[in-house]
Protein backbone atom coordinates (compact mmCIF):
# COMPACT_ATOMS: atom_id res chain seq x y z
CA UNK A 1 0.00 0.00 0.00
CA UNK A 2 2.76 2.41 0.98
CA UNK A 3 4.77 1.35 -2.07
CA UNK A 4 1.81 2.06 -4.33
CA UNK A 5 1.50 5.49 -2.86
CA UNK A 6 5.19 6.22 -3.41
CA UNK A 7 5.00 5.08 -7.02
CA UNK A 8 1.87 7.14 -7.56
CA UNK A 9 3.49 10.28 -6.16
CA UNK A 10 6.64 9.64 -8.17
CA UNK A 11 4.63 9.19 -11.36
CA UNK A 12 2.75 12.40 -10.69
CA UNK A 13 5.95 14.35 -10.08
CA UNK A 14 7.51 12.92 -13.25
CA UNK A 15 4.45 13.76 -15.31
CA UNK A 16 4.44 17.29 -13.94
CA UNK A 17 8.16 17.72 -14.62
CA UNK A 18 7.70 16.36 -18.13
CA UNK A 19 4.82 18.73 -18.81
CA UNK A 20 6.94 21.69 -17.71
CA UNK A 21 10.10 20.58 -19.49
CA UNK A 22 8.44 19.72 -22.76
CA UNK A 23 7.80 23.45 -23.30
CA UNK A 24 11.52 24.12 -23.31
CA UNK A 25 12.83 24.66 -26.82
CA UNK A 26 15.55 26.68 -28.50
CA UNK A 27 14.28 29.40 -30.82
CA UNK A 28 15.86 32.30 -32.74
CA UNK A 29 14.97 35.97 -32.90
CA UNK A 30 13.85 36.65 -36.48
CA UNK A 31 13.47 40.44 -36.31
CA UNK A 32 16.11 43.18 -36.44
CA UNK A 33 15.44 44.38 -32.89
CA UNK A 34 13.31 42.38 -30.48
CA UNK A 35 12.24 43.28 -26.95
CA UNK A 36 11.82 41.19 -23.84
CA UNK A 37 9.00 42.36 -21.58
CA UNK A 38 8.26 41.74 -17.93
CA UNK A 39 4.66 40.71 -18.65
CA UNK A 40 3.04 38.83 -21.59
CA UNK A 41 1.30 41.94 -22.88
CA UNK A 42 1.77 44.44 -25.71
CA UNK A 43 2.16 47.20 -23.15
CA UNK A 44 4.38 45.23 -20.77
CA UNK A 45 7.47 47.14 -19.58
CA UNK A 46 10.59 46.32 -21.62
CA UNK A 47 13.27 44.35 -19.75
CA UNK A 48 15.91 44.44 -22.47
CA UNK A 49 16.69 43.97 -26.16
CA UNK A 50 17.38 40.82 -28.18
CA UNK A 51 18.96 40.94 -31.60
CA UNK A 52 18.54 39.19 -34.94
CA UNK A 53 19.67 35.57 -34.88
CA UNK A 54 20.03 35.46 -31.08
CA UNK A 55 19.10 32.10 -29.58
CA UNK A 56 16.63 32.00 -26.73
CA UNK A 57 15.42 29.11 -24.59
CA UNK A 58 11.69 29.02 -24.06
CA UNK A 59 10.58 28.41 -20.49
CA UNK A 60 6.82 28.54 -20.95
CA UNK A 61 4.11 29.80 -23.27
CA UNK A 62 1.03 31.85 -22.52
CA UNK A 63 -1.26 32.70 -25.42
CA UNK A 64 0.92 34.18 -28.16
CA UNK A 65 3.78 34.96 -25.76
CA UNK A 66 6.87 33.01 -24.81
CA UNK A 67 8.72 33.39 -21.52
CA UNK A 68 12.36 33.04 -22.62
CA UNK A 69 15.93 33.06 -21.32
CA UNK A 70 18.87 34.31 -23.37
CA UNK A 71 22.44 33.03 -23.19
CA UNK A 72 23.27 36.27 -21.34
CA UNK A 73 20.76 35.22 -18.68
CA UNK A 74 18.26 37.89 -19.62
CA UNK A 75 14.72 36.67 -19.03
CA UNK A 76 11.39 38.03 -20.21
CA UNK A 77 8.34 37.66 -22.44
CA UNK A 78 8.45 37.96 -26.21
CA UNK A 79 5.68 37.66 -28.81
CA UNK A 80 5.79 34.54 -30.97
CA UNK A 81 5.92 36.66 -34.14
CA UNK A 82 9.50 37.64 -33.19
CA UNK A 83 10.67 34.03 -33.00
CA UNK A 84 11.36 31.12 -35.33
CA UNK A 85 12.28 27.52 -34.59
CA UNK A 86 14.93 27.84 -37.30
CA UNK A 87 18.52 28.57 -36.45
CA UNK A 88 19.64 31.79 -38.15
CA UNK A 89 23.24 31.98 -39.34
CA UNK A 90 24.49 35.52 -39.35
CA UNK A 91 27.69 35.03 -41.34
CA UNK A 92 28.42 32.98 -44.43
CA UNK A 93 31.35 30.72 -45.26
CA UNK A 94 33.09 27.93 -43.36
CA UNK A 95 32.35 24.26 -43.32
CA UNK A 96 28.98 22.62 -43.13
CA UNK A 97 27.82 21.56 -39.72
CA UNK A 98 26.49 18.05 -39.75
CA UNK A 99 22.99 17.19 -38.65
CA UNK A 100 21.23 20.39 -39.63
CA UNK A 101 18.95 20.54 -42.66
CA UNK A 102 17.70 23.54 -44.62
CA UNK A 103 14.42 23.20 -42.81
CA UNK A 104 16.16 23.98 -39.54
CA UNK A 105 18.65 26.60 -40.66
CA UNK A 106 18.23 29.94 -42.40
CA UNK A 107 21.20 31.99 -43.52
CA UNK A 108 20.70 35.66 -42.79
CA UNK A 109 20.97 37.81 -45.88
CA UNK A 110 20.13 35.03 -48.30
CA UNK A 111 17.77 35.52 -51.22
CA UNK A 112 16.26 39.02 -51.44
CA UNK A 113 18.86 41.09 -49.59
CA UNK A 114 20.65 44.46 -49.56
CA UNK A 115 22.64 43.54 -52.71
CA UNK A 116 19.45 42.68 -54.59
CA UNK A 117 17.91 45.97 -53.42
CA UNK A 118 20.96 47.91 -54.63
CA UNK A 119 20.78 46.21 -58.02
CA UNK A 120 17.03 46.85 -58.21
CA UNK A 121 17.49 50.53 -57.41
CA UNK A 122 19.97 50.95 -60.25
CA UNK A 123 17.37 49.91 -62.82
CA UNK A 124 14.31 51.44 -61.14
CA UNK A 125 15.13 55.10 -60.67
CA UNK A 126 11.46 55.98 -60.12
CA UNK A 127 11.29 54.01 -56.89
CA UNK A 128 11.77 56.62 -54.15
CA UNK A 129 13.74 55.17 -51.24
CA UNK A 130 14.47 58.52 -49.59
CA UNK A 131 11.17 58.51 -47.70
CA UNK A 132 11.32 54.79 -47.05
CA UNK A 133 14.59 55.32 -45.17
CA UNK A 134 13.10 58.29 -43.36
CA UNK A 135 10.00 56.34 -42.35
CA UNK A 136 12.16 53.70 -40.74
CA UNK A 137 13.62 56.27 -38.36
CA UNK A 138 10.13 57.07 -37.04
CA UNK A 139 9.95 54.86 -33.98
CA UNK A 140 7.79 55.14 -30.90
CA UNK A 141 8.96 53.91 -27.49
CA UNK A 142 6.65 51.74 -25.33
CA UNK A 143 6.51 54.48 -22.67
CA UNK A 144 5.27 56.97 -25.31
CA UNK A 145 2.53 54.52 -26.30
CA UNK A 146 1.33 54.23 -22.71
CA UNK A 147 1.15 57.98 -22.17
CA UNK A 148 -0.53 58.40 -25.58
CA UNK A 149 -3.28 55.99 -24.51
CA UNK A 150 -3.57 57.57 -21.06
CA UNK A 151 -3.82 61.10 -22.44
CA UNK A 152 -6.49 60.11 -24.96
CA UNK A 153 -8.38 58.12 -22.30
CA UNK A 154 -8.06 55.00 -24.42
CA UNK A 155 -8.54 52.00 -22.14
CA UNK A 156 -6.88 48.82 -23.43
CA UNK A 157 -8.23 45.37 -22.56
CA UNK A 158 -6.46 44.27 -19.41
CA UNK A 159 -5.28 47.78 -18.54
CA UNK A 160 -2.38 49.80 -19.91
CA UNK A 161 0.25 48.46 -17.49
Amino acid sequence: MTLTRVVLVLAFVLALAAATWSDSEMMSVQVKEGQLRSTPSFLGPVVGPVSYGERVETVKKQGDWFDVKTSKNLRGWIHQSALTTKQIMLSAGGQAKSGASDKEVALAGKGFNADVEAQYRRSNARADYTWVDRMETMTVRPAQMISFLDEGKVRPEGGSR
Partner: protein
Amino acid sequence: MKQRRGTLIVLPFVFIALLLLFPCRSAISGFSDVVGGVADGVLPGKVGSAVKVAVALGKSFEDITPEQEYYIGRAVAANVLGKYPASLNDRFDDYLNTLGQTLAQASDRPDTFGGYHFLLLDSPEINAFAAPGGLILITRGMVRLCKTEDALAAVLAHEIGHIQGRHGLKAIKNSRLTDAFNVAATEAARTYGPAQLSKLTEAFEGSITDITSTLMTSGYSRDLEQDADKGAVTILRRVGYDPGALVVMLTEMKKQLKPGGLDFAKTHPDPKDRIDYVKPLIGNAPAKPIPPERQHRFEAATQNL
Protein backbone atom coordinates in the same frame (compact mmCIF):
# COMPACT_ATOMS: atom_id res chain seq x y z
CA MET B 1 -5.25 -8.07 -4.17
CA LYS B 2 -6.02 -4.49 -3.37
CA GLN B 3 -2.34 -3.55 -3.59
CA ARG B 4 -1.95 -5.24 -6.99
CA ARG B 5 -4.83 -3.30 -8.41
CA GLY B 6 -3.21 -0.11 -7.12
CA THR B 7 0.02 -0.90 -8.94
CA LEU B 8 -1.91 -1.61 -12.13
CA ILE B 9 -3.59 1.76 -11.94
CA VAL B 10 -0.26 3.51 -11.44
CA LEU B 11 1.54 1.85 -14.37
CA PRO B 12 -0.07 3.90 -17.16
CA PHE B 13 0.87 7.10 -15.33
CA VAL B 14 4.52 6.05 -15.18
CA PHE B 15 4.41 5.16 -18.86
CA ILE B 16 2.93 8.53 -19.83
CA ALA B 17 5.46 10.33 -17.66
CA LEU B 18 8.34 8.55 -19.39
CA LEU B 19 6.89 9.28 -22.83
CA LEU B 20 6.59 12.96 -22.01
CA LEU B 21 10.10 13.10 -20.63
CA PHE B 22 11.99 11.83 -23.66
CA PRO B 23 11.57 14.55 -26.27
CA CYS B 24 12.47 17.36 -23.89
CA ARG B 25 15.67 15.65 -22.82
CA SER B 26 16.98 15.96 -26.36
CA ALA B 27 15.89 19.60 -26.54
CA ILE B 28 17.94 20.45 -23.50
CA SER B 29 21.03 18.48 -24.50
CA GLY B 30 20.98 20.20 -27.89
CA PHE B 31 21.49 23.62 -26.31
CA SER B 32 25.28 23.90 -26.51
CA ASP B 33 25.51 22.44 -30.04
CA VAL B 34 23.15 25.02 -31.36
CA VAL B 35 24.88 27.96 -29.75
CA GLY B 36 28.19 26.74 -31.17
CA GLY B 37 26.61 26.61 -34.62
CA VAL B 38 25.62 30.26 -34.51
CA ALA B 39 29.17 31.29 -33.72
CA ASP B 40 30.52 29.24 -36.63
CA GLY B 41 28.05 30.79 -39.02
CA VAL B 42 27.88 28.01 -41.56
CA LEU B 43 25.38 26.69 -44.01
CA PRO B 44 24.66 22.99 -44.12
CA GLY B 45 26.45 21.36 -47.02
CA LYS B 46 25.22 19.00 -49.73
CA VAL B 47 24.21 21.67 -52.18
CA GLY B 48 22.43 19.07 -54.34
CA SER B 49 20.08 17.99 -51.62
CA ALA B 50 19.54 21.60 -50.55
CA VAL B 51 18.21 22.34 -54.04
CA LYS B 52 15.74 19.50 -53.76
CA VAL B 53 14.56 20.76 -50.40
CA ALA B 54 14.13 24.26 -51.76
CA VAL B 55 12.21 23.12 -54.82
CA ALA B 56 9.98 20.94 -52.70
CA LEU B 57 9.39 23.49 -49.96
CA GLY B 58 10.37 26.88 -51.26
CA LYS B 59 7.50 27.45 -53.60
CA SER B 60 5.06 29.50 -51.68
CA PHE B 61 5.03 32.87 -50.00
CA GLU B 62 5.20 31.14 -46.64
CA ASP B 63 8.88 30.40 -47.22
CA ILE B 64 9.75 34.08 -47.48
CA THR B 65 11.67 34.98 -44.33
CA PRO B 66 10.80 38.18 -42.42
CA GLU B 67 14.16 39.58 -43.55
CA GLN B 68 13.30 39.05 -47.22
CA GLU B 69 9.79 40.37 -46.64
CA TYR B 70 11.47 43.53 -45.31
CA TYR B 71 13.33 44.15 -48.58
CA ILE B 72 10.18 43.41 -50.58
CA GLY B 73 8.20 45.89 -48.45
CA ARG B 74 10.81 48.62 -48.85
CA ALA B 75 10.68 48.29 -52.62
CA VAL B 76 6.86 48.27 -52.70
CA ALA B 77 6.72 51.41 -50.53
CA ALA B 78 9.39 53.06 -52.70
CA ASN B 79 7.20 52.40 -55.74
CA VAL B 80 4.09 53.85 -54.11
CA LEU B 81 6.19 56.88 -53.11
CA GLY B 82 7.34 57.16 -56.71
CA LYS B 83 3.72 57.76 -57.62
CA TYR B 84 2.41 59.62 -54.57
CA PRO B 85 4.84 62.09 -52.96
CA ALA B 86 5.18 62.19 -49.19
CA SER B 87 3.45 65.08 -47.48
CA LEU B 88 5.87 67.16 -45.43
CA ASN B 89 4.04 67.20 -42.15
CA ASP B 90 6.23 66.20 -39.20
CA ARG B 91 3.59 66.94 -36.62
CA PHE B 92 1.03 64.70 -38.24
CA ASP B 93 3.58 61.95 -38.98
CA ASP B 94 4.51 61.89 -35.26
CA TYR B 95 0.87 61.55 -34.29
CA LEU B 96 0.24 58.97 -37.03
CA ASN B 97 3.19 56.83 -35.95
CA THR B 98 2.30 56.96 -32.27
CA LEU B 99 -1.26 55.87 -33.01
CA GLY B 100 -0.31 53.34 -35.71
CA GLN B 101 2.57 51.68 -33.91
CA THR B 102 0.48 51.33 -30.74
CA LEU B 103 -2.25 49.60 -32.76
CA ALA B 104 0.32 47.34 -34.44
CA GLN B 105 1.66 46.24 -31.07
CA ALA B 106 -1.81 44.91 -30.24
CA SER B 107 -2.08 42.91 -33.48
CA ASP B 108 -1.45 39.18 -33.81
CA ARG B 109 1.86 40.10 -35.42
CA PRO B 110 3.45 42.94 -33.44
CA ASP B 111 6.98 42.00 -34.48
CA THR B 112 8.08 42.27 -38.09
CA PHE B 113 11.70 42.41 -39.22
CA GLY B 114 11.92 46.20 -39.50
CA GLY B 115 8.86 47.16 -37.45
CA TYR B 116 5.77 49.19 -38.39
CA HIS B 117 6.15 52.71 -39.76
CA PHE B 118 3.53 55.11 -41.10
CA LEU B 119 3.64 58.02 -43.54
CA LEU B 120 1.22 60.62 -44.89
CA LEU B 121 1.01 60.93 -48.69
CA ASP B 122 0.28 64.23 -50.33
CA SER B 123 -2.75 63.26 -52.39
CA PRO B 124 -6.46 64.19 -52.28
CA GLU B 125 -7.32 60.63 -53.38
CA ILE B 126 -9.00 58.45 -50.77
CA ASN B 127 -6.47 55.65 -50.36
CA ALA B 128 -4.12 53.73 -48.07
CA PHE B 129 -1.43 51.13 -48.82
CA ALA B 130 0.20 48.44 -46.71
CA ALA B 131 3.61 47.36 -47.99
CA PRO B 132 4.78 43.96 -46.66
CA GLY B 133 6.64 44.01 -43.37
CA GLY B 134 4.89 47.05 -41.92
CA LEU B 135 5.30 50.17 -44.09
CA ILE B 136 1.89 51.82 -44.20
CA LEU B 137 1.10 54.83 -46.38
CA ILE B 138 -2.09 56.85 -46.10
CA THR B 139 -3.26 59.73 -48.29
CA ARG B 140 -4.35 63.15 -47.08
CA GLY B 141 -7.72 62.46 -48.69
CA MET B 142 -8.25 59.39 -46.55
CA VAL B 143 -7.25 61.17 -43.32
CA ARG B 144 -9.61 64.03 -44.13
CA LEU B 145 -12.42 61.54 -44.38
CA CYS B 146 -11.82 60.56 -40.74
CA LYS B 147 -13.68 62.72 -38.25
CA THR B 148 -12.26 61.11 -35.09
CA GLU B 149 -9.12 59.37 -33.83
CA ASP B 150 -11.18 56.17 -33.60
CA ALA B 151 -12.02 56.42 -37.31
CA LEU B 152 -8.35 56.93 -38.24
CA ALA B 153 -7.45 54.02 -35.96
CA ALA B 154 -9.97 51.86 -37.85
CA VAL B 155 -8.32 52.66 -41.21
CA LEU B 156 -4.83 51.96 -39.86
CA ALA B 157 -5.96 48.76 -38.12
CA HIS B 158 -7.34 47.50 -41.46
CA GLU B 159 -3.95 48.10 -43.10
CA ILE B 160 -2.18 46.37 -40.19
CA GLY B 161 -4.60 43.47 -40.80
CA HIS B 162 -3.17 43.13 -44.33
CA ILE B 163 0.37 43.02 -42.95
CA GLN B 164 -0.36 40.54 -40.19
CA GLY B 165 -2.00 38.24 -42.78
CA ARG B 166 0.99 38.71 -45.13
CA HIS B 167 -1.53 39.44 -47.90
CA GLY B 168 0.96 41.35 -50.06
CA LEU B 169 3.24 38.34 -50.30
CA LYS B 170 0.32 36.19 -51.42
CA ALA B 171 0.10 38.35 -54.54
CA ILE B 172 3.54 37.16 -55.73
CA LYS B 173 3.40 34.61 -58.54
CA ASN B 174 4.80 31.23 -57.56
CA SER B 175 7.13 31.09 -60.57
CA ARG B 176 9.08 34.09 -59.25
CA LEU B 177 9.54 32.45 -55.90
CA THR B 178 10.66 29.16 -57.41
CA ASP B 179 13.35 31.06 -59.36
CA ALA B 180 14.48 32.96 -56.29
CA PHE B 181 14.55 29.92 -54.02
CA ASN B 182 16.53 27.95 -56.61
CA VAL B 183 19.27 30.57 -56.68
CA ALA B 184 19.21 30.93 -52.91
CA ALA B 185 19.55 27.19 -52.44
CA THR B 186 22.37 26.58 -54.93
CA GLU B 187 24.57 29.37 -53.68
CA ALA B 188 26.05 28.73 -50.25
CA ALA B 189 27.77 32.10 -49.94
CA ARG B 190 25.89 35.20 -48.91
CA THR B 191 27.39 37.33 -51.64
CA TYR B 192 26.16 36.18 -55.01
CA GLY B 193 28.02 36.11 -58.31
CA PRO B 194 26.80 38.50 -61.04
CA ALA B 195 24.70 35.81 -62.76
CA GLN B 196 22.91 34.75 -59.58
CA LEU B 197 22.45 38.33 -58.48
CA SER B 198 20.83 39.27 -61.75
CA LYS B 199 18.53 36.24 -61.61
CA LEU B 200 17.52 37.09 -58.06
CA THR B 201 16.97 40.74 -58.95
CA GLU B 202 14.76 39.67 -61.83
CA ALA B 203 12.62 37.56 -59.47
CA PHE B 204 12.59 40.45 -57.00
CA GLU B 205 11.52 42.94 -59.66
CA GLY B 206 8.70 40.63 -60.75
CA SER B 207 7.55 40.17 -57.15
CA ILE B 208 7.41 43.93 -56.60
CA THR B 209 5.36 44.37 -59.78
CA ASP B 210 2.93 41.64 -58.66
CA ILE B 211 2.37 43.37 -55.31
CA THR B 212 2.21 47.00 -56.47
CA SER B 213 -0.24 46.18 -59.24
CA THR B 214 -2.43 44.41 -56.69
CA LEU B 215 -2.23 47.37 -54.29
CA MET B 216 -2.76 50.06 -56.91
CA THR B 217 -4.82 48.45 -59.65
CA SER B 218 -6.50 45.11 -59.11
CA GLY B 219 -6.99 44.97 -55.33
CA TYR B 220 -7.06 42.00 -53.01
CA SER B 221 -9.73 39.31 -53.07
CA ARG B 222 -12.86 39.78 -51.01
CA ASP B 223 -11.63 37.07 -48.60
CA LEU B 224 -8.43 38.94 -47.85
CA GLU B 225 -10.29 42.22 -47.36
CA GLN B 226 -12.60 40.47 -44.89
CA ASP B 227 -9.57 39.00 -43.15
CA ALA B 228 -8.10 42.52 -42.79
CA ASP B 229 -11.44 43.87 -41.48
CA LYS B 230 -11.66 41.04 -38.97
CA GLY B 231 -8.11 41.75 -37.82
CA ALA B 232 -9.00 45.45 -37.53
CA VAL B 233 -11.98 44.77 -35.23
CA THR B 234 -9.78 42.66 -32.92
CA ILE B 235 -7.01 45.28 -32.80
CA LEU B 236 -9.44 48.15 -32.10
CA ARG B 237 -11.08 46.19 -29.33
CA ARG B 238 -7.76 45.22 -27.70
CA VAL B 239 -6.43 48.76 -27.70
CA GLY B 240 -9.68 50.28 -26.50
CA TYR B 241 -10.96 52.10 -29.58
CA ASP B 242 -14.54 51.74 -30.74
CA PRO B 243 -14.71 48.92 -33.34
CA GLY B 244 -17.89 50.60 -34.56
CA ALA B 245 -15.61 53.31 -36.00
CA LEU B 246 -14.84 50.88 -38.82
CA VAL B 247 -18.52 50.89 -39.81
CA VAL B 248 -18.59 54.69 -39.51
CA MET B 249 -15.61 54.89 -41.89
CA LEU B 250 -17.07 52.43 -44.36
CA THR B 251 -20.34 54.36 -44.38
CA GLU B 252 -18.39 57.56 -45.04
CA MET B 253 -16.52 55.87 -47.89
CA LYS B 254 -19.76 54.62 -49.37
CA LYS B 255 -20.91 58.25 -49.52
CA GLN B 256 -17.68 59.65 -50.95
CA LEU B 257 -16.38 56.98 -53.29
CA LYS B 258 -17.65 56.96 -56.80
CA PRO B 259 -18.18 53.51 -58.33
CA GLY B 260 -15.59 53.07 -61.06
CA GLY B 261 -13.40 55.72 -59.42
CA LEU B 262 -9.64 55.51 -59.54
CA ASP B 263 -8.81 55.20 -55.85
CA PHE B 264 -10.01 52.99 -53.03
CA ALA B 265 -13.18 52.17 -54.98
CA LYS B 266 -11.13 50.43 -57.64
CA THR B 267 -9.16 48.19 -55.28
CA HIS B 268 -11.71 47.44 -52.56
CA PRO B 269 -15.07 45.65 -52.42
CA ASP B 270 -18.18 47.80 -52.13
CA PRO B 271 -18.19 49.34 -48.61
CA LYS B 272 -21.77 48.08 -48.23
CA ASP B 273 -20.53 44.46 -48.50
CA ARG B 274 -17.84 45.16 -45.95
CA ILE B 275 -20.33 46.74 -43.54
CA ASP B 276 -22.51 43.63 -43.80
CA TYR B 277 -19.48 41.52 -42.95
CA VAL B 278 -18.17 43.70 -40.11
CA LYS B 279 -21.42 44.43 -38.26
CA PRO B 280 -21.94 40.91 -36.83
CA LEU B 281 -18.30 40.92 -35.63
CA ILE B 282 -18.91 44.05 -33.61
CA GLY B 283 -22.21 43.02 -32.07
CA ASN B 284 -24.74 45.43 -30.69
CA ALA B 285 -22.49 47.40 -28.35
CA PRO B 286 -23.52 51.07 -28.36
CA ALA B 287 -21.05 53.56 -29.87
CA LYS B 288 -18.47 54.71 -27.33
CA PRO B 289 -18.50 58.47 -26.74
CA ILE B 290 -15.19 60.10 -27.70
CA PRO B 291 -13.52 61.86 -24.72
CA PRO B 292 -12.86 65.58 -25.45
CA GLU B 293 -9.08 65.16 -24.85
CA ARG B 294 -8.88 62.61 -27.64
CA GLN B 295 -10.96 64.67 -30.05
CA HIS B 296 -8.93 67.78 -29.29
CA ARG B 297 -5.58 66.16 -30.08
CA PHE B 298 -6.99 64.60 -33.26
CA GLU B 299 -8.19 67.98 -34.49
CA ALA B 300 -4.89 69.64 -33.54
CA ALA B 301 -2.87 67.02 -35.44
CA THR B 302 -5.05 67.13 -38.56
CA GLN B 303 -5.81 70.86 -38.78
CA ASN B 304 -3.36 71.67 -41.60
CA LEU B 305 -4.14 68.77 -43.89
